[in-house]
């Protein structure tokens, strides 16, 4: 009794049944959220460029990347988490824990490579704790990661005994401070590579489809035979490993491992992800969007700093951009 939607004039015979008109690719591109965000980024860069002539130089832009890579890597994982209707507030604390693990185990005599490996293990385990509590026991992600946020921070403080490690092998500094071809910061390349990997995984692989399926409709995913619990848990483990990588780069960059690293990091990561179009209620989101979100926020903070605006105002800017950006996203979503 429902009348199938009939196609108007121009039609292409593809797929089953009644053909539906092809949308012109340019029109589709314009309507997409990522395009809107890209536009926002460009406008923002132009405006910031006006505030300071130094902003739009290659030197400065590359320099900015040294700072946003850490948040960016974590944001990749956070995107996956939020798509599955979860959230992870513990990433900042986990960063500190991994950083402290690397630093203090090295100080305790472990060969450096092993210390780094241990760091990754800790990152993965931290993610696993979150994953099991949330996916297996079915506890609220907000509540669990609120708890692990405090727990990981506490362990980080306990391990470091409120102290810090600053002596690392000179080769270590290389990780966070090297430049490729003298110009491009090494961590930017790392970020690009990892981002591409995650983007391909999410957008093209069967695991990525599983993530979207679980985020859209967990019940139907289960009926279809998808291992829902494992998928949800894995997403937190992946985030944990990305946090470990970020911790490695961060520790190298500042040449210090201490327990209060990454405070407040989780909120700016979530802000970037949500700004990038990922719906906090789950089901949708892209890596491209997240990267744009990260860039928008990073450029904003850098641009303001370079223009001599006191850092306090960049906090205001981040908050404002978050509110406006999400409002725009929500409005687009309902059209």
């Amino acid at each position: 009794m429902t009348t199938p939607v009939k196609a108007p004039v121009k039609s292409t015979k593809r797929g089953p049944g009644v053909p539906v008109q092809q949308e012109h690719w340019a029109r589709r591109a314009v309507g997409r959220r990522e395009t809107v965000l890209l536009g926002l980024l460009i406008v923002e860069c132009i405006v910031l460029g006006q505030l300071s002539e130094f902003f739009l130089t290659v030197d400065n832009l590359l320099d900015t990347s040294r700072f946003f890579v850490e948040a960016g890597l974590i944001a990749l994982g956070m995107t996956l988490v939020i798509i599955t209707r979860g959230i992870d507030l513990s990433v900042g604390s986990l960063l500190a824990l991994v950083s402290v693990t690397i630093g203090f185990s090295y100080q305790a005599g472990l060969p450096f490579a092993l210390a780094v490996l241990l760091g990754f293990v800790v990152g993965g385990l931290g993610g696993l704790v979150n994953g099991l509590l949330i996916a297996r026991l079915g506890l609220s992600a907000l509540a669990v990661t609120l708890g692990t946020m405090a727990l990981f921070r506490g362990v980080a403080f306990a391990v470091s005994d409120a102290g810090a490690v600053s002596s690392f092998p000179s080769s270590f500094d290389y990780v966070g401070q090297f430049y490729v071809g003298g110009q491009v910061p090494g961590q930017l390349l790392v970020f690009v590579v990892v981002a591409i990997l995650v983007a391909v995984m999410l957008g093209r692989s069967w695991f990525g489809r599983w993530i979207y399926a679980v985020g859209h409709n967990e019940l139907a995913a289960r009926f279809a035979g998808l291992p829902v619990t494992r998928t949800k848990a894995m997403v937190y483990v992946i985030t944990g490993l990305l946090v470990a990588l970020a911790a490695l780069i961060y520790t190298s960059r500042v040449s210090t491992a201490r327990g209060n690293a990454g405070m407040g990091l989780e909120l700016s990561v979530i802000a970037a992800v949500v700004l990038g179009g990922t719906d906090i209620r789950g089901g949708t989101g892209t890596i491209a969007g997240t990267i744009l979100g990260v860039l928008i926020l990073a450029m904003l903070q850098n641009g303001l700093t370079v223009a001599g605006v006191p850092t306090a105002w960049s906090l205001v800017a981040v908050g404002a951009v978050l509110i406006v950006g999400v409002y725009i996203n929500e409005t687009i979503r309902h059209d």
Partner: protein
Amino acid sequence: MPGDQVVRVALREVSKRFGGVVALSDVTFDLRAGEVHALVGENGAGKSTLMKVLAGIHQPDGGSLSIDGVETRLATPHAAVAAGIALIPQELELFEELSVVENLFVGARRPRTRSGLFDWGKMRARAREVFEALGVDTDVRRPVGALSAANQQLVEIGRALLRNAEVLIMDEPTAALTDREADRLFTVVADLRSRGVGIVYISHRLREIFALADRITVLRDGATVDTRPVGELDEAELVRLMVGRSMQELFTRSSHQAGGTLLEVEELSMAGRFEDVSFSVRAGEILGVSGLIGAGRSEVFKAVCGIEPSQSGEIRIAGAAVTPRTPAQAQALGLAYVPEERRSEGLILKMSIADNVTLSRLRTFSTWGLVKRSDQRTAAGAMTERLTVRGARLDAPVGRLSGGNQQKVVLAKALLGEPRVIVLDEPTRGVDVGAKSEIYRIVDELVRAGNAIVLVSSEMAEVLAMSDRVMVMHEGRVAGLFSRAEATPERLAAAASGAQHAGEAPAHRPRQTEVGE
């Protein structure tokens, strides 16, 4: 006499569209005080939409609504409640964590004490009064979530009574009730009727309708077919009005050659859901499974297909004992389950048709972890062609399709894995007549190809027309097993209600391979 009663509400030439889909066209319906007016029709005929218009949830695009003779517009559900109209939905909308008293009073005026505080004592007393009027004794302080479905329904009715509802709309009220609970409900309905309350009674259970109703209105494809006093109709005539053509034209049934036993289940049990269930299905055979909702049919097959594993009992596929504990394991064994609720259990509405069809087997379409879109499209395309899915491109979100086409997509997904045993749970619910016909054709093809089909359905006609054998369940147990010749509507209905039956012996002993009939 019902004929003399005053008309309480009247809907005249009401129309409603949702986007491009016409849900109601020029429907006329009226309800008198003190009558039970049954509203019947196939799934998708427009019954729910019409009642939502009456309850102020939807606004009609055309036509009028009058209450006690005065033309009114019910802009919100609240307006309808204020006008004395209460909807008891099929899916109850209660607050599970709150007490019975609380649920009764949400949105209603609460009595206060002299000092301005809520008078909880009075509220509790009022609540108990309401329930006494319903003939129920209950602890009103208990959280609603702890009550049985039947009692929760009474809380909904209680809410309506507290607000002095004069019109009650009941949507499939006995769907989740046992027989005793249903009987209790009928007493309540009769009592309300005698007090002058007008009741719209939507149900698929023709027996109930003939027992309770004063008048019957039939809807088909969004339009009124007829309204008649119950005395002027019988079941066959009613069905003809509902379906619009002779039942038999709908079904496709070639002769079946039954082969070896593919699925055997022995003494399967799950506490609280079903007990000691045993049956078998052969290749090239359709086993119909009927029974009232709540009888445990879906639960049994969800257990067999690994979605909610059973606690005890044995399952054998082609003679070998198996234990499917996850849906993926069941699929690997050649079992496929097409769920009841296609929108919440069967499909991911926002994902594309191609993704939905291949969802269970994405890995087989992947190399190096990445899904090969061309392979995916080819396979999905072939399946959707074969099942005549119409209405959108493979890339379009499956939510855009009509109910019937969506159901075909769910079927496509199940068939992609080339299962040997296919369980169809209410496959034609909410599906238009045309698509129903096509689905029956597909089922017939599958059977002829040598698969074993289980057809769980609440539509008697469907079960009777398509099945080779029929298993009837009642309150978690197998109440009867009938051959095609033995299965009549009376016997099936009797078994579903728990009466004693005659029929073939329950088949726990595996049948030997036989020459086809």
